[in-house]
């Protein structure tokens, strides 16, 4: 019984980090109709910047917001310089369907190489600022430690803020409008380009938070080729697709579902089935509810 509860906690914690990544992917999708594989690369870069901040100033609490800010700046820069150029040059021909995907893949590689140039490929360490020891419940130990609790709280706060921005502010409205109907939005006076960049910036901040939290949650090791970040990308993406690429709430739900399913499979079935489980889950969702778990549209055409 206790093991079930602990497994649930493990799943929720991991899922909430995937949720941040999934949100970043959905934000970019909703504001530019692009799936951004470089998301994990930007998250990685932000986390390394956070690492530098810790090296200089010794404080994780300072590093976390700075990583998010730098994530926002990097993302905005990439959107301004790179994506606009890309969309201008490659909107025709056979390449159109995959140009953004391939280009962001290339960007991922460039960012990783860049990180390797500066910081090297060996592991560097980010200490988790809070204890990792689980709380006790009687004689049992919970899979919930101060650090994990902080992660859950932080993700919830970020989530609520993002949803608020998206749903309740003019900026959020502009963001949603420009994604669906850019020309009409322009006519309505919305500065579509600025709004797009803003969407990317939000995504970058979310990615930076995901990176910092995940590294502190794990064993603290950080490297350009780290498996954790590749998984963050893959699982974040899968979570976003499961949730239905169109809603932030869907991304969160999808991520939590993914996290829970993986945790239970890990504990009760076996460690090596993790990856194939993610794939099967995705497949099942796409077949049963093609528009995602939380979907607003019937179809699945991009």
């Amino acid at each position, binding site marked *: 019984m206790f*093991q079930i509860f*602990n*497994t649930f906690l*493990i*799943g929720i914690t*991991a899922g909430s*980090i995937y949720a941040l990544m999934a949100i970043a992917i959905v934000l970019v999708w909703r504001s530019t109709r692009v799936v951004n594989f470089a998301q994990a690369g930007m998250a990685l870069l932000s986390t390394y910047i956070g690492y530098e901040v810790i090296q200089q100033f010794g404080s994780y609490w300072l590093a976390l917001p700075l990583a998010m800010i730098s994530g926002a700046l990097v993302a905005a820069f990439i959107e301004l310089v790179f994506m606009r150029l890309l969309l201008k040059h490659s909107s025709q021909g056979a390449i159109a369907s995959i140009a953004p995907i391939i280009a962001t893949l290339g960007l991922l590689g460039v960012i990783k190489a860049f990180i390797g140039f500066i910081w090297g*490929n*060996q*592991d560097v*360490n980010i*200490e988790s600022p809070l204890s*990792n*020891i*689980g709380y*006790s419940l009687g004689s049992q*130990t919970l*899979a919930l*430690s101060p650090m994990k609790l902080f992660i859950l709280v932080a993700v919830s706060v970020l989530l609520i803020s993002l949803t608020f921005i998206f749903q309740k502010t003019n900026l959020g409205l502009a963001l949603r409008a420009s994604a669906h109907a850019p020309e009409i939005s322009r006519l309505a006076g919305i500065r579509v380009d600025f709004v797009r960049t803003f969407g990317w910036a939000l995504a970058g901040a979310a990615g930076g938070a995901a990176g910092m939290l*995940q590294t502190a*949650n*794990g*064993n*603290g*090791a950080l*490297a350009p*080729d*780290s*498996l*954790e970040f590749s*998984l963050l990308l893959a699982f974040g993406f899968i979570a976003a697709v499961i949730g239905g690429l169109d809603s932030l709430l869907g991304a969160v739900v999808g991520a939590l579902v993914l996290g829970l399913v*993986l*945790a239970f499979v*890990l*504990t009760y079935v076996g*460690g*090596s089935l*993790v990856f194939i489980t993610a794939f099967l889950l995705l497949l099942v969702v796409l077949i049963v509810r093609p528009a995602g778990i939380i979907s607003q549209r019937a179809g699945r055409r991009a």
Partner: protein
Amino acid sequence: MNRRKLIPASAVIAAASMLLSAAPAQAAEPGVTATSIKLGITIPMTGIASPGYNKIPGAMKAYFDYVNANGGVNGRKINLVVKDDQYIPTLAVAKANELILKDKVFALVGTLGTASNKAIARSAQLSNRGIPALFVNTGFSGFADKKAYPTTFSLLPSYQMEAKVIGKYLDENFKGQKVGLIYQDDDFGLDALNGFKQAKIDFAVKIPYASGSQAVAGVAGTWITKLQAAKPDVVVLFGVSSATAAALGNAFAYKYSPKWILGSVGGDAVTLAANKVPPALLAGAKGFSFAPAPSDSSDEYIKMFMDVNSTYNKGVAFDNNIVAGMTSAFLTVQALKAAGPKLTRKGLIAAIEKSGASFANPSLTPFAYSATSHVGATGYWIGTYDATGALKPDGGKYTVYTTDSGTGAVVTSTYKRPAMPAKGLPN
């Protein structure tokens, strides 16, 4: 250009570029000149298994530099080419091919990893081409089989031997109690399972992990929950450093503390500390080694290695990995010297088979190289980690247990290690 002609045309261009890089005639023995010997190693320098192991090439180079500074081997200076294989067998094969075909090394030295070494031996066709793979950094018992791997020489005692020694310890100290095991789910771990079977150890709970999965969030946590459910009194950790660290770290977070037994592969305290396992967590755990402990500066080999490390490998902390690297390097120099001034691959292999068992070496067990066996060290001493993470031999002195990879019994060794040659330079 007409589309239909494209494939042949572009192929011609590509092929022409290949032609332009046609090689000149080969030297007599690859990797050997009158003044130099080129050796190659492929080892995880980055990636999941790299913590700790990525210090080995630096340590080897340091010892080779020391030897080079003192005249080299039969007048030749040793040059080590290092490639990173990230503990991925297919990458190891690619790097080994590069070392053999592009860098044209004389021999491979100290390649790390059971799966990587197996893949290299097979794919780079070491036996067909007579390329020596010296003192491989793995304890897989199969490599000692001369028929299967005619050009490969083990160094470490096999995992079967280690498991049997652990089994003896368990039998003498934990008879009738429940034992748990975490092991890597490939030939490395399976070799150990064989040894435990020989020692007739029955595990209350066995947890295999796929290499690399220890990095996935939550995986190591599930090991601990499984252990907590089965409640063994003592747990054997037979994995690489990152897996051992994940197990110990998560056990601490879950407030689970059985008696730990750390296999030698993942048992280096400095490496574990780099993986966020403070030495305090190790205190009281049992560990195994076949070489003198790195903290034992009264040992003449350790002292010599420490000096070489501080001179030629500045800034790198001295630990088991340094000792391991320098031991391989030391033995390599012995072997090269024994092969004589007319250096050939065949000659090198013959030299180790003939006189390898009598090479000076830091190991506290005898080597068993012969014309019929490529087994290196044959046993372990048992120690306990103290609060600083240093492994101290039980009883204050090294009691070495030797055995074989088969059904032979575990016996206390009476081997007395011969004195180190002057200045640590093989003569």
